[in-house]
């Protein structure tokens, strides 16, 4: 029983340490320019999402590429396809959000 309590306490501490991220939604914003798609991922208070997985899908939901956000929450990549692109940020503990760039916006950023 004592061990279980200890374990619960440890678990609580571990969970608490990551709590700020858990308490907030994550967001991703993207825009295209000069042949590149720029993305930034952030919490509502402006803090960057570091080390979040970014997944890029085309309009048929086919995964085109993926990457990881840097310390500023940025992940940039060359335009992979002139299509509507759904860009997903997948942070820890299943905190996910997505941003869709319309085909016209991608094309305008060639």
């Amino acid at each position: 029983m004592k061990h279980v309590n200890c374990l619960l306490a440890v678990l609580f501490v571990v969970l608490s340490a990551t709590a700020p991220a858990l308490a907030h939604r994550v967001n991703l914003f993207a825009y295209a320019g000069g042949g590149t798609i720029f993305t930034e991922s952030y919490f509502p208070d402006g803090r960057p999402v570091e080390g979040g997985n970014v997944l890029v899908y085309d309009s048929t939901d086919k995964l085109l590429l993926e990457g990881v956000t840097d310390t500023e929450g940025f992940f940039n990549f060359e335009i992979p396809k002139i299509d509507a692109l759904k860009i997903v940020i997948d942070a820890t503990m299943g905190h996910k959000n997505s941003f869709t760039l319309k085909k016209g916006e991608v094309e305008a950023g060639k």
Partner: protein
Amino acid sequence: MHSRTIAVSSIMAAFLILAIVHPALAHFGAVIPSDDIVTQDDDKTLNVQVKFIHPMEGQYMEMVKPKQFGVQHNGKKTNLLDTLAPAKGKSPDQDQSFTFWTTDYQIRRPGDYTFYVEPAPYWEPAEDLFIVHYTKVCVNAFGMEEGWDQHVGLEMEVIPFTRPYGLWTGNLFTGQVLLKGKPVPFAEVEIEYLNETPGNINIVLPPADPYVTQVVKADVNGVFSYAMPKAGWWGFSALNEADWTLTHDGQEKGVEIGAVYWVWTRDMK
């Protein structure tokens, strides 16, 4: 007794007529954007209207081109004065139209956008003074809730203590009144509902003058609060007398400076 009743009735009738002809009209600078929260599914082009009005009664006043109009985003100010175009507006009971100003602004990045206006001084003969209302409104974009509490650095401004978007009807709005960056103790704040709020189907008809303009006083730190009872745009106008004067017809005249802040509320449903 009978004649006295008539006399009282006459006085009351006269009072009513006077009350109708001369309601206590509060002037408000207004900066009204077409959206308060821009998401990826929204139109990213905001229309922003700059006016000088009586918000509850709906009357417009003639507004010359402002001295200053811009937007603050990420701590950086962008001058938008040259993008303003004149337009005409009036309330249903006004028989002529008056100038206001409008612009379209493209939201390109996440974060808070605070639009601010410094109007040209407005000469108000009825009050024998000039009026200058420094006016602000904040629009949030793409979920980054950063910037709304930053100072713009106007001579007089309201700093929101309540995040000024995503507000439900009935929420308390709290702000601080600053003059040259310092709190104004016991500042008087006038509050009005914008009856021409888009989508407002129930026009508010105030049953008596005090209902037109709500009045609260700030505390010693210049902090005030008001709970907004209806969905739509609400204007908060803190007033003060300037320590400078302007000349009208060769005479020195006082200047009423105001700090106005606009917020949008939505019914919880």
